[in-house]
């Protein structure tokens, strides 16, 4: 191992060591003071984040080409670390209130973040597979973390079985790709593929990998687990899962497809087009009939997977691809902040035993807790894509890139489904302000802070979005 190898994975190594040490340290923290573990875990993420930021501008590959460090990985890693921090902030009071407070919650979350970061840096299908497992296994456990609740156990087992199935697809795809090209290295694959070796096998392998990642990011038709898992898992886990797994899944999808399979673009673009369209339509249409807020947000998360998938459709078109991927990254950022904020409001209203999760329970919120209702309004507007929020800017960049790539039809589907989605998102807003009710909320400083912070980011960044888009554009610059 050279110093260069070490440099490549420096933040990830720090976080791994931190998580292992925290696992042991936590054993000696008294049961009623697990808040210390949460603070230590957050501190680890913050330290890692600062080292990640120090890495901006660095580019090299390490460990015999198994991992790379570039602008893209740095950008995605920073986003993942921020989601980890937001995930801990949401969980801090929630797990205590729900009687789930155990130190492992935070350690497992850290390990999951390690997996996601490794995914963003993976340059070999073997590493992609191991990172996928490393990010998923803690999530399976976290989904089942509330062991007294049958729904949570069901969510855990469902997520585990379908997740294992999805991983199987990725492994099988990897095996076929290896069979076709004789290598698992992403750079090696494209080198071999351009030599014109048997490409049917390669195409099938790539398609299987796409199916596996489709499961992970909850794209239709591989979304069946999403509503049940999102509903059953403890809400703070759902928030982290929705954001983190999506970022890592899309990062890997992008890295694998842009680096290894550009030659398959003609075969795969149509498939991606259809996946994206179906995901947007089904996610938004089914969300209309939901009365449970967790289920509604689950379908909304499916729909957003469809929007992000849009960014991949022009893939293979060298001129459009950088703009479109930058737009995808921007959309991911906007989704992460909006997502954590919306789930934060859900957590504030949730009572024990799954009470307080119906949309009807939000009646009267606008009068009784104007600040919380205002924050929720911001998140709902952002999810629809209305001003003055990040959601609007994200959708604008996305649709612009897709239209520039010549896929106007897809952009129209995107706009129409966004209009459809306004119906169910605005229903929450209408319930909050127009209906009478006596909602009670939990006031927890960390939770209030998270909700306020994400709401402010959602609004303020949308007013000056250019720098963020520039950052995203620079991140993907060297990828092609």
């Amino acid at each position, binding site marked *: *191992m050279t110093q260069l190898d070490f440099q490549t994975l420096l933040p990830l190594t720090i976080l791994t060591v931190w998580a*292992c040490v925290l*696992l*042991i340290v936590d*054993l000696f923290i008294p049961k009623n003071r697990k808040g210390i573990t949460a603070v230590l875990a957050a501190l680890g993420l913050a330290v890692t984040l600062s080292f990640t930021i120090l890495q901006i501008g660095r580019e090299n590959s390490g460990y015999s080409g198994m991992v790379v460090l570039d602008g893209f990985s740095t950008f995605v890693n920073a986003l993942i670390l921020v989601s980890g921090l937001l995930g801990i902030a949401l969980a801090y009071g929630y797990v205590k209130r729900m009687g789930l407070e155990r130190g492992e919650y935070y350690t497992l979350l850290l390990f999951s973040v390690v997996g996601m970061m490794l995914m963003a840096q993976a340059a070999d299908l073997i590493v992609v597979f191991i990172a996928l497992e490393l990010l998923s296994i803690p999530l399976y456990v976290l989904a089942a973390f509330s062991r007294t609740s049958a729904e949570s156990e069901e969510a855990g087992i469902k997520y585990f079985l379908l997740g294992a199935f999805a991983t199987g697809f990725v492994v099988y795809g990897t095996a076929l790709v290896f069979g076709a090209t004789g290598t698992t290295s992403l750079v090696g694959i494209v080198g071999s593929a351009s030599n014109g070796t048997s490409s049917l096998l390669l195409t099938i392998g790539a398609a299987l990998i796409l199916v596996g990642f489709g499961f992970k990011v909850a794209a239709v038709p591989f979304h069946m687990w999403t509503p049940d898992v999102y509903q059953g898992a403890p809400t703070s886990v759902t928030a982290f899962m929705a954001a983190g797994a999506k970022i890592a899944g899309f990062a890997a999808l992008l890295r694998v497809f842009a680096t290894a399979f550009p030659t398959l673009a003609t075969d795969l673009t149509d498939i991606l087009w259809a996946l994206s369209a179906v995901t947007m339509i089904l996610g938004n249409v089914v969300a209309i009939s939901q009365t449970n807020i967790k289920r509604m947000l689950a379908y909304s998360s499916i729909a957003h997977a469809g929007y992000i998938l849009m960014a991949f459709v022009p893939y293979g078109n060298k001129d459009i691809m950088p703009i479109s991927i930058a737009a995808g990254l921007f959309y991911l950022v906007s989704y992460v902040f909006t997502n954590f904020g919306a789930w934060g409001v859900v957590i504030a209203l949730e009572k024990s035993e799954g009470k307080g999760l119906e949309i009807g329970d939000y009646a009267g919120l606008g009068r009784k807790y104007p600040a919380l209702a205002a924050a929720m309004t911001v998140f709902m507007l952002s999810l629809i894509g209305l001003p003055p929020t990040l959601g609007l800017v994200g959708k604008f960049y996305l649709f612009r890139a897709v239209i520039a790539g010549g896929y106007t039809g897809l952009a129209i589907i995107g706009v129409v489904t966004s209009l459809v989605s306004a119906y169910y998102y605005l229903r929450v807003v209408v319930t909050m302000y127009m209906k009478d009710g006596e909602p009670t909320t939990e006031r927890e400083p960390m939770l209030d802070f998270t909700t306020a912070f994400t709401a402010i980011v959602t609004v303020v960044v949308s007013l000056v979005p250019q720098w963020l888009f520039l950052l995203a554009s620079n991140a993907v610059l060297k990828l092609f």
Partner: protein
Amino acid sequence: MNEWLYVLLFIVVGLIIPVGAIGVAWIISPKKPNPIKSETYECGIETVGDSWVQFKAQYYIFALVFLVFDVEAVFLFPWAVKLGQLGLYAVIEGIIFILILVAGLVYTWRKGMLEWA
């Protein structure tokens, strides 16, 4: 295939010893059975019911921890064989690998999962 002869020899010897011991005992022992002698436990309590009973879920964790360390052992096998040529660097890598799993062992231990109760 030459070195596999050792394995074959090992299997053959491994078979001969127990089979031989039991066989000799069977040949030279006197055979005068009576009902009390044929009981499973000659000087204990007679077993009741089936021996296939439902286990406590806790035992499952033993099997799981065993599986983890089993996989670790498999990974360390090529490491051990190649250690001489790989040098200090590989020793350190191997030790890191083991240390990470020792953390798991400490965790398991401290959580009281290794207690047979």
